[in-house]
């Protein structure tokens, strides 16, 4: 065994770097050790369990999991914290001792875990904080887009402009994996140029065309969100108009039967329909389609008549103000029963072939550009506008000082401004004042001062030595945590005044920021990644098995999740409501999917669910979909999801080379239920070790099919579904209600899982074993406050991990600590 590694993390100020500890400090250190010694004695009383139930596999002969406990005594815990943090995580989730092995009574495991935690926590308190190291942070593309919207008032599609960010620990804001390659740099530079041009605006931009395709034709039979009530057969899309001027709109019209060219006779021209084009919901153009005249003309003249009809929908030239507008194209709704053609559809996309639909539209422009008054970013940028040549440079300095302070997230130096003004001057020489501003903004956006967050330490800092972050750094940490962007003017003012570390001021700021609309970033960036909600996008249920599933339903699943999670985080409710809340948000499509008849229309609205089975996350279609395969449910995925996401004890990956197919049936064999097939996992101890925990958890949700509908029968086996499951503790649970209540019986488990993830996101780094005492204290503190979300946020923000910084501890030292216990 290697020599124990001891590390001391002392606050800067209590220790002068390079000086030895004073006798007084030593005495204080000893006193601090006293509670740890008491805890150590307590822990000794629990040690038997380890010998009795763990050493059978984890010993110096078998090295199960490359771990051996047989040569270890309680006194060795202090030098092997990482190992014991991992051990209690496995025990807390009851992944160890594995199912099928002898296990101590529940209270014995709980007792061991509690004593170990409390020993580790007192050790941490005695040794002082290790705030960990956060690598130089590059803005990821979400942060980039959010920053631009705040600083310049421009909306950018970061996914279209920038390369994807690497994910670590489930999040895309983990600093040490946000690498840069030439491709990144190239795209960030090109984005800086394009965005600066867009933000300042071009007086006479070349006409450009944008095309929009109907996201779904199947949903056009009813009202589509974004269009005026009483319309159908169309869709709406948002578009940025770069300048005031005229724009040409062209819509493509067809029916389920085909376009005007494809199918003759054109039944769908039988009745007259009124087409409307809308801008931000207001009708700006109308024409008609179909009716006797059109039908006769097409009958008699064919192509010339079709061309004439098409021209009504082509090159519709309209004046539009610059900025973002919603374009809508649709038909005014009329009765469905207007011909003897098929009147009702069997499933989305079938039937109703005599309804005209808008399959797409284009916007081309501007023509005759008439200024940039409507460009929203210009009002953000031009806080002054020079009336004569002499006023130009001072005004440019004023503009760039304001913008760059926010972009660089700190007070500007002369150097900062000098560089930016250099770009202004060369741009000004090229094309005047506005070109100068544009070039200067371009430089600001390509600057490392904008793209990177670095927290430098004193030159003589040594590894492991902790320093408080500056007020300005704290403001950035806070803003990127809660808003996924830099601080606003108010937060910067407070930080520059040196007040942010005042705990009352800090709490006020956290409260203010959580109430701000920008805090929706917590839902979209934190919660979506934690709950893996974006995975919904990549799952396409088998259309033969689930013909009713379509893109609209998928979008509705995601929207419900977003609104639901947001309502809990942003209303500062107890986070346990994520599991337990009876309210949700539905539109008609989703409500029907859940078997609720009372919701009408395409808008989402808050309702209270009568059906208790749908309460909380476990009843949400999105979650049930993302834990299924395209053709069936997966109790394994669902169990693993619950373990990892909701309980915080992820199961290990399956060993290499195992057979994982459960679905192939030998010819002639009887069809079995999934539960019966999962029994294969029991036959192999190596499978059962994890599946013995995962499968029973997932089976409790088996009544929800792969697209989240409730079902009582197994449609293949023809047998009723048995949703009897089991927690890792052995406690039986039947169905989602039981499972939910069982999870709520251990609120600390769920809240700790959430807190660890939230802290990973807050810091932008992997949570290490030395962070766990902080995590536990945040959870304890929140417990006293009904686990309200804000109290968890505050706990993290006020922790040393968030308030302090240090150089990375030598990697070899960390490695040694683990190696002392493991074989490799």
């Amino acid at each position, binding site marked *: 065994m290697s020599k124990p590694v001891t590390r001391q993390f002392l606050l800067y100020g209590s220790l002068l770097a390079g000086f030895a500890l004073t006798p007084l400090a030593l005495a204080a250190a000893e006193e601090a050790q006293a509670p740890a010694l008491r805890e150590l004695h307590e822990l000794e009383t629990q040690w038997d369990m380890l010998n009795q139930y763990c050493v059978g596999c984890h010993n110096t002969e078998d090295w199960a999991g490359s771990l051996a406990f047989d040569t270890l005594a309680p006194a060795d815990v202090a030098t092997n914290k990482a190992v014991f943090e991992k051990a209690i995580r496995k025990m807390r989730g009851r992944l160890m001792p594995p199912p099928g092995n002898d296990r101590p009574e529940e209270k014995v495991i709980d007792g061991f875990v509690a004593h170990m935690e409390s020993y580790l926590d007192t050790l941490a308190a005695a040794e002082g904080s290790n705030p960990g190291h956060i690598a130089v942070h590059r803005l990821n593309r979400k942060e980039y887009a959010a920053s631009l919207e705040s600083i310049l008032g421009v909306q950018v599609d970061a996914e279209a402009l920038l390369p994807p960010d690497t994910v670590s620990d489930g999040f895309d804001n983990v600093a040490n994996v946000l690498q840069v390659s030439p491709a990144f740099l*190239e795209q960030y530079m090109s984005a800086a*140029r394009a965005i600066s041009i867009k933000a300042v605006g071009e007086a006479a931009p070349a006409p450009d*065309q944008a*095309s929009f395709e109907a996201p779904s034709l199947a949903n056009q039979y009813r009202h589509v969100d974004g269009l005026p009530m009483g319309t159908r057969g169309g869709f709406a899309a948002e578009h940025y108009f770069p300048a005031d001027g005229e724009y040409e709109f062209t819509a493509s019209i067809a029916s389920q039967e085909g376009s005007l060219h494809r199918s003759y006779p054109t039944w769908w021209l039988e009745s007259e329909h009124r087409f409307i084009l809308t801008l931000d919901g207001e009708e700006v153009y109308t024409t008609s389609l179909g009716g006797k005249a059109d039908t006769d003309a097409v009958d008699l003249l064919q192509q010339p008549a079709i061309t004439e009809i098409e021209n009504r929908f082509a090159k519709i030239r309209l004046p539009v103000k610059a900025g973002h507008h919603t374009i809508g194209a649709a038909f005014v709704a009329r009765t469905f029963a207007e011909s003897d053609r098929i009147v009702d559809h069997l499933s989305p996309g079938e039937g109703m072939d005599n309804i005209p639909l808008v399959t797409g539209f284009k916007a081309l422009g501007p023509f005759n550009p008439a200024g940039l008054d409507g460009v929203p970013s210009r009002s953000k940028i031009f806080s002054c506008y020079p009336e004569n040549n002499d006023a130009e440079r001072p005004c440019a300095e004023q503009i760039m000082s304001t913008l760059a302070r926010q972009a660089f997230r700190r007070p500007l130096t002369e150097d900062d401004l000098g560089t930016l003004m250099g770009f202004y001057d060369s741009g000004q020489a090229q094309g005047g004042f506005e070109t100068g501003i544009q070039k200067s903004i371009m430089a600001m956006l390509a600057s490392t001062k904008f793209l990177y967050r670095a927290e430098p330490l004193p030159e003589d800092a040594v590894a492991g030595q902790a320093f408080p972050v500056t007020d300005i750094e704290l403001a950035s940490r806070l803003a990127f945590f809660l808003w996924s962007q830099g601080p606003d003017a108010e937060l910067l003012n407070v930080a520059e005044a040196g007040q942010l570390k005042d705990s009352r001021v800090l709490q006020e700021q956290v409260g203010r920021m959580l109430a701000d609309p920008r805090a929706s970033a917590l839902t979209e960036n934190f919660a979506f990644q934690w709950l893996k909600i974006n995975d919904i996008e990549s799952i396409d249920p088998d259309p033969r098995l689930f013909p009713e599933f379509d893109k609209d339903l998928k979008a509705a699943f995601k929207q419900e999740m977003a609104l639901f999670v947001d309502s809990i985080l942003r209303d500062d409710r107890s986070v346990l409501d994520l599991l337990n809340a009876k309210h949700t948000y539905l539109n008609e499509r989703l409500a029907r999917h859940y078997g609720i008849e009372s919701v009408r229309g395409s808008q989402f609205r808050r309702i209270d669910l009568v059906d208790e089975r749908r309460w909380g996350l476990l009843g949400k279609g999105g979650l049930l979909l993302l834990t299924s395969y395209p053709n069936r449910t997966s109790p394994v995925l669902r169990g693993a999801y619950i373990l990892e996401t909701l309980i915080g004890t992820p199961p290990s990956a399956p060993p290499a080379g195992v057979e994982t197919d459960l679905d192939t049936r030998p010819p002639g064999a009887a069809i079995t239920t999934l539960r019966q097939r999962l029994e294969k996992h029991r036959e192999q101890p190596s499978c059962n070790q994890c599946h013995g925990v995962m499968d029973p958890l997932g089976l409790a949700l088996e009544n929800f099919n792969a697209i989240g509908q409730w079902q009582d029968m197994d449609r293949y086996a023809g047998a009723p579904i048995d949703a009897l499951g089991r927690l890792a503790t052995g406690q039986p649970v039947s169905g989602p209600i039981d499972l939910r209540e069982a999870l709520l019986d251990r609120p600390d488990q769920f809240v700790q899982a959430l807190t660890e993830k939230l802290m990973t996101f807050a810091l932008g780094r992997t949570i290490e074993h030395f962070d766990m005492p902080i995590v536990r204290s945040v959870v304890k503190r929140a417990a006293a406050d009904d686990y309200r979300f804000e109290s968890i946020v505050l706990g993290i923000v006020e922790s040393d991990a968030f308030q302090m910084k240090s150089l990375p501890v030598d990697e070899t030292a960390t490695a040694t600590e683990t190696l002392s216990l493991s074989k490799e």
Partner: protein
Amino acid sequence: MPVFITKKFLSRRTVLRGMGTTIALPFLDAMVPAATALAQTAAAAKPRMGFFYLPHGAIMRDWTPDIIGKDFDFKPILKPFEPYRNHVTVVSGLGNKPAQSSAVHAITPGTWLSCAPPRRSHAPFGGITADQVAAKHIGQDTALPSLEIATEEKGGSAACDGTYGCSFGNTISFSSPSSPLPMEFSPKKFFAKLFGEGTNDQERAMIANDYKSLLDMVMSETSSLKKGLGASDIAMLDGYLDSVREIERRVHNLESRDLSIYDLPELPVGIPNFDEHTRLMFDMMALAYQANMTRVVSFMMAAEVSNQAYTHIGIPDAFHPLSHHNNSAASIDKLSLLQTWHSQVIADFMGKLAAIPDGENSLLDNSMLLFGSNMSNSNNHDHFPLPSVVLGGGAGAIKGNQHLKYEDHTPVANLLLTMLQRAGVPVEQHGDSTGSFAEV
């Protein structure tokens, strides 16, 4: 000799609607066949290399020919290549030991071309990949030393791992042991990368000027940012500076071209369906080879742990779950069909290359493409025997019409080393290679 790339060339497959204004393509000197003696020599000496990655292995029953040596038989998956028999070299018996780990999918893509075991940490550290070795030698005088492309933004969550993170699961290219290169999946961004920004000479010159002054700024800022940072952060910023220098080189290369105006098809927007997407990426790749914009392309034809359903060939199952076939005949047949589709798309691409003259030969004669996987039997997650086939004549450096069978578990690094050497890259070792193949 087709000097111009006609509008039809790209738009035939592109059902993409776009911003209708046609954008201009710089009329690259390299597009003119035999513009200079130098160009001709370079084309002859430096083949176009391609590395086409298929996740989740292959059904080896339907891949490996029975006959060893010349005039071998084509099994179903390789059948689409039969018309190009003289440009097909099947290499059997290969394995990749460095890919072995319990993290399976999370390191399989990133070790295919590196043949180096990654370090156990979330911050990536593996080995430089063969495509990037090639790019450093034969790619430096093209506008883009290499291109890394994909058809899906990311794969399933198993492409990440608690020990190794996600760096090795989502790319097959590393420009250094710690620098994974992102794979571009958006046809639109791929297009812009190839044909650039700006619509005329004046605008292009302006853009180049902007970039040059930005790069100067970034260079000096990054150096001063290093103050007060730890060693790992400084190393990261050094990597950033390398990127800055690389972009400077590219800007210079683009500028030094003889630029004229040239019509291209509509700019693709959005992501088309999987079949169209894959073919579109190949179409643009052919254009990039033809215009000598790059000589090295790495293509992840599907994401690791992809849940892509191949409905266009009648397979509604998600790819990754299907790959755990448990020796079920039905699943194996579906997988084989799926893999054959990948071969077919590549064969169609070869057909295109065969029709494009390059110097005195065709682009196919001057290509050296590796198609394969870093997994063998997806049901076992094993890394032997790896499916590997070399396509193209390698500018005369690859014999073709051969099925070579080496001793079991010969490192696939040997094949990569052989390809690099035949492409004129002066290397003696790659990953865990033990030598190169004289027979290829």
